[in-house]
């Protein structure tokens, strides 16, 4: 019996007092909700040499200046793109892990988790070396005659996308795998016995049943991609800019804290929007509880 299934209602609940949540709740309100509210209302007395402007100036910029509209769009587009790629790349691996790895499943899980143990800097650093003008990727592409002159990957969005996919795909695989694991094989067997081909069985039986895992994975990967700036900082080059990267640059270069606050609120709104979507979708499916 899977731990995910709810304990039947009517079970004994006297062992735990509802007050046990008080301290934690207070902690979160004081150190999680209030800082965000503080940032939203921008009550900080931020004195910089840059002229003090009203916050509306910054929001106007973010929503009406084409350069910034493009950045907000890029932030979301990048997150969605990376998530979709993770689904496509990760699904077969999840299938393999659950159905075909047998004795090796422990090793496969270890290999999936091992990268998560490494510093994100380590992984991004490795890609930076690979994508350099004289790095292995260019060397290979030149050797294979796909390019006749090295391509500046590090100046384009491609290296950032690859870097993000690399960091986030294990999350997707594990999410899908955990749901795939719970699919009753007999359902597939019945379909096959009734004459459906392998592909049809997958499309009509397995895949729909695994949508839950894809959904969970989508949310996790999207939110992580949305907030990431290290990968973009080190791999993104000039072309691709997203909100987290700009917030970082405001703090370390331009020093317009008000602008940074405005950007962080927009980013927050995107995240909250996604969270809201997640709540609507999952509630509709009737699966309650922890994501």
């Amino acid at each position, binding site marked *: 019996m899977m731990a995910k299934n709810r304990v039947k209602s009517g079970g004994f609940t006297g062992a735990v007092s509802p007050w046990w949540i008080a301290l934690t709740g207070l902690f979160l309100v004081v150190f999680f909700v209030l800082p965000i509210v503080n940032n939203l209302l921008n009550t900080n007395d931020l004195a910089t*040499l840059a002229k003090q402007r009203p916050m509306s100036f910054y929001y106007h910029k973010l929503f009406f200046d084409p350069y910034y509209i493009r950045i907000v769009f890029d932030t979301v587009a990048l997150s969605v793109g990376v998530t979709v790629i993770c689904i496509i790349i990760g699904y077969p691996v999840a299938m393999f892990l659950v159905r075909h790895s047998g004795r090796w499943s422990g090793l496969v899980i270890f290999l999936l988790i091992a990268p998560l143990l490494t510093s994100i800097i380590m992984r991004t650093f490795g890609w930076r070396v690979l994508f350099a003008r004289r790095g292995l990727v260019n060397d290979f592409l030149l050797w294979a005659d796909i390019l006749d002159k090295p391509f*500046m990957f590090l100046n384009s969005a491609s290296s950032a996308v690859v870097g993000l996919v690399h960091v986030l795909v294990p999350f997707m695989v594990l999410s899908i795998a955990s749901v795939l694991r719970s699919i009753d094989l007999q359902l597939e067997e019945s379909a096959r016995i009734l004459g459906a081909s392998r592909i049809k069985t997958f499309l009509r039986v397995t895949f729909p049943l695994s949508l839950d895992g894809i959904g969970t994975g989508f949310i996790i990967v999207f939110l992580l991609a949305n907030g990431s700036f290290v990968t973009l900082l080190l791999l993104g080059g000039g072309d691709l*800019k997203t909100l987290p990267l700009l917030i970082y640059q405001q703090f370390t270069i331009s020093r317009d804290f008000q602008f940074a606050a405005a950007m962080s609120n927009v980013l927050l709104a995107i995240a909250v929007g996604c969270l809201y979507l997640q709540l609507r979708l999952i509630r509709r499916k009737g699966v309650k509880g922890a994501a």
Partner: protein
Amino acid sequence: MSRSKRWIHSSVVGSALLFSGMGTVSAEEITVTSFGGIWETAITNCYAAEYEKRTGHKANVMIGSPAQWMSQIEANPDNPPIDVIVSTQSQTVAAGEGGLISRATAKEIPNLADVDPLFIGAVDGWGACFDFGAFVIAYNKDTVKNPPTSIKEFVNRTIAGDWVASFPSITYGIMPDIIWSFADLYGGSADNVDPAFEVFKKIKDSGNAIAWASVTDFLNQMSTGDADIGMYWDGRAFSFIDKGNDWMGVVKPTDKAFMSCVAMNKSKGAPDAAWEYLNIVFEPGPMSCFSDYLNYGVTNQKVQYSEKMKDRITFPKDLRAPSTATSRKIAESAADWIERWNKEIGM
């Protein structure tokens, strides 16, 4: 529960409690800042070590960039995480007027009395610059047989495709000042940087330029051959050559290279122990030590240079340096220029 599990659990809790008490810094320890690469070696060996010798307390050296440090001080004005901040002329003026650093005169830092007044004026009385360097042209002698003699020639030939050149990226902290220097060179000013943007647009569009994100990045690009030539600091280039890289050559441009001088100041909320450190910074002995490492000019007039150094250093009269008013304008406009750069050029 098995014994091994119990042991691990209690040792985890125990160590957590033990460790959470650690990691505090004593009152006379100070946190000082430095640029990266060989700069950090010099600061650690010439200044931080001297401070520790004289006071018995540690000076922790942090690398980073001035803007970041300024942000950190600004977010914590009463108890800044940084006691001594390194910054360029424009950044020093910004920090001073933003209330982040303390006023420094010969009263607080006795050795300031011997500093060339030019360098005190350069930062409008907010302490003084302690070293200065020129932004010259460094090239690979093997791949660039006929190096340019002026900045304009360098720019024109980059656009024409004579080589692959490397320029600082916009994320490099001193870039706003460099933008000003290009504007100044091409007939503009701090109020009108259009000439600079036009030139850089042409450079970017030529496809013959790459960007260096950090001072070490440039050296890597030159070493691996990613770049054949670029604009770089004279001191750092000479230090690199001294390490055995005699394939690199340096050109002192005839059309006045940009001079950047770097100041060090105490942040407002920092303890008085920082003044002691700053006094060491401006003392002739440690200054010479710094100059030896970095081949930069230093500002205490009592410092004697060797012949080799006199040859290498370009003195202010041959360089392009911003006035105090210009520095202020650069500081005010930096954020706008950065945004404009991101929109128009993006390198």
